[in-house]
């Protein structure tokens, strides 16, 4: 009964975060000015800032935050491991290989879309490799094998990145490092639109797995005894959660911490029922990353702080405080 109300409030919070994000920046804008700019009236500079820069960026931050949080929550249930996060199957390593090689080989000049595309291709490669390895060992998809395969293949990709960077010139080196730190500065309407269309089915698939994921958190045998088709759920959930993470990392680089911490915050505040936890994670993930990105671009103007640094600096103390409050449910 209270669940829809809570989700409604969280959705309002997400809208509020986007509004704040559009308001603040090098040119502060009032809400009236923003509304006018969205409608296409008023000062031409303000229209450009709102419509072409801040709004798509805030929306992309919201989408990426939601994707990372939902992906992390899914992995935590599947692996029954509170330390699981969206990149645990080597997705970030694969994406980084794609991105770094485009930079180092000078392909980035071809077009602004080439880097996300290469990163996405790398992420998909990583997912396929990890699932292939895990599926070839034993008859069913073994969680432990999957974890190990993810770690090992991630390590291999890291070695590839270091090798590429060894031969990179200083400029490529710098942009590769910045990509890996994660940033939403490249956000535009086209990319954000494609991202939204891509993420939506993924969100729906995972939301449909909420109850089975509740069972999976009790262990695979227990889930099967309670009527869950464990193998099918594992393939669907691993695949979809990895694809969400792949898209997020492709458009914004490696933004850590969101996918790890957001589901825990929901759990500590409102319990572990995935029927609530998944949508709530999406909304809180959106709020968190939108605000973190706002801080990242405004706190040390004109320098932009990597958003991953902000998510950790803000997230760690908050999470520790929440842990110390010591709720058990």
């Amino acid at each position: 009964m209270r669940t829809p109300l809570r989700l409604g409030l969280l959705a309002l919070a997400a809208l509020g975060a986007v509004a704040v994000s559009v308001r603040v920046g090098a040119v502060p804008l009032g809400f009236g000015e923003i509304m006018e700019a969205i409608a296409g009236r008023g000062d031409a500079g303000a229209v450009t800032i709102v419509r072409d820069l801040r709004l798509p960026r805030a929306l992309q931050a919201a989408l990426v935050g939601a994707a990372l949080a939902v992906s992390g929550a899914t992995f935590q249930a599947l692996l029954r491991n509170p330390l699981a996060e969206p990149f645990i199957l080597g997705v970030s390593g694969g994406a980084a290989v794609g991105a770094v090689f485009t930079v180092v080989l000078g392909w980035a000049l071809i077009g602004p879309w080439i880097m996300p595309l290469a990163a996405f291709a790398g992420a998909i490669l990583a997912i396929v490799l990890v699932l292939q390895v895990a599926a070839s060992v034993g008859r069913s998809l073994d969680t432990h094998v999957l974890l190990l395969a993810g770690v090992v293949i991630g390590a291999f990709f890291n070695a590839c990145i270091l090798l590429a960077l060894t031969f990179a010139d200083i400029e490529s080196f710098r942009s590769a490092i910045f990509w890996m730190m994660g940033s939403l500065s490249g956000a535009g309407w086209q990319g954000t639109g494609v991202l939204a269309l891509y993420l939506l089915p993924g969100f729906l698939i995972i939301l449909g797995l909420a109850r089975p994921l509740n069972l999976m958190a009790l262990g695979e045998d227990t889930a099967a005894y309670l009527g869950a088709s464990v193998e099918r759920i594992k393939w669907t959930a691993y695949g979809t959660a990895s694809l969400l993470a792949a898209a997020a990392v492709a458009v914004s680089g490696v933004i850590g911490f969101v996918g790890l911490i957001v589901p825990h915050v929901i759990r500590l505040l409102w319990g572990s029922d995935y029927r609530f936890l998944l949508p709530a994670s999406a909304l809180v993930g959106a709020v968190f990353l939108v605000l973190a990105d706002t801080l990242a671009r405004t706190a040390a103007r004109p320098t932009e702080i990597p958003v991953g640094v902000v998510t950790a600096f803000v997230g760690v103390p908050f999470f520790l405080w929440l842990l110390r409050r010591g709720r058990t449910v």
Partner: protein
Amino acid sequence: MRDEGRGARGEGIAVRDAPAWTCDRVRFRYPGTSDDVLSDIDIAVPAGACTAVIGPNGSGKSTLLRLLLGLAAPNVGEVRFAGTRAGDWDREAMAREVGVVPQGEEGAFPLTVREMVAMGRYPYLGRWRAEGRDDRRAIAAAMRRCDVSGLSRRPVSTLSGGERQRARLARALAQEPGTLALDEPTVALDIRHEMAIFELLRTLADAGTTVLLVTHNLNLAARYADRLVLLDGGRVAAAGTAGEVLTRERIEDVYGWPVRVVPFDDARGTVPQIVPLGGEACQEMSSGHPIARSAALSNTNDDNDP
């Protein structure tokens, strides 16, 4: 009304007197190993009765349970539940027929007792349907039955061992199954909680539920189960009533420890009870050496076993 679902997928309704489970010359080994964990298992688990699977550590009890529940497939032979191969059962359909209390289950995240028991309704609700009146009634009835109604908002992680086990049993009962399977349900429980669970299982069996449990408690198995299956090294060493299975020679041979068998007058009749011997009778035996063992056995002929 519950019988509608019995018999999977158009196999027709199983006759009440037909066995719940049958194993036909079952052989099983884990992939990548060369030793059979189970071999030549030929048993029938009767419907509407309580069957206890007993045997030493590593005799294959839990593996047998996994096969019966369709989580592992035999390498040779066939395991059938209600006439259909256990591996062919749709998991949701089987969960409406069989409630399982697994051993050593540990949830990854905090849950309340009510949330955990409600998971027993999954095979009826599937992914989307909300809890209806029937579901709430089944959950409440199961919680009352296992005496956990007062704990409904408590996190499972804060429960004592006995309470936690009762909550798990409540979840299995919320499935409204015609059959219950339990893997060492009373391990680490004190006598009061252990007896409460055995009493409840007996009540359920008397009301027509098929109960299958794996246990190390030979004496309670003798008193509460209608039938015992004794496993030894992956084979059935004996199967039948407590009087038939629990003889001194057989228990000493299977468990490798001298025992005395004494009769005990239970409300349901006289059953054998196993008293393991200590002191001189077991001195040499406790070294575990097979030669010492036979020597120790010859010293314990002072009891009057049939």
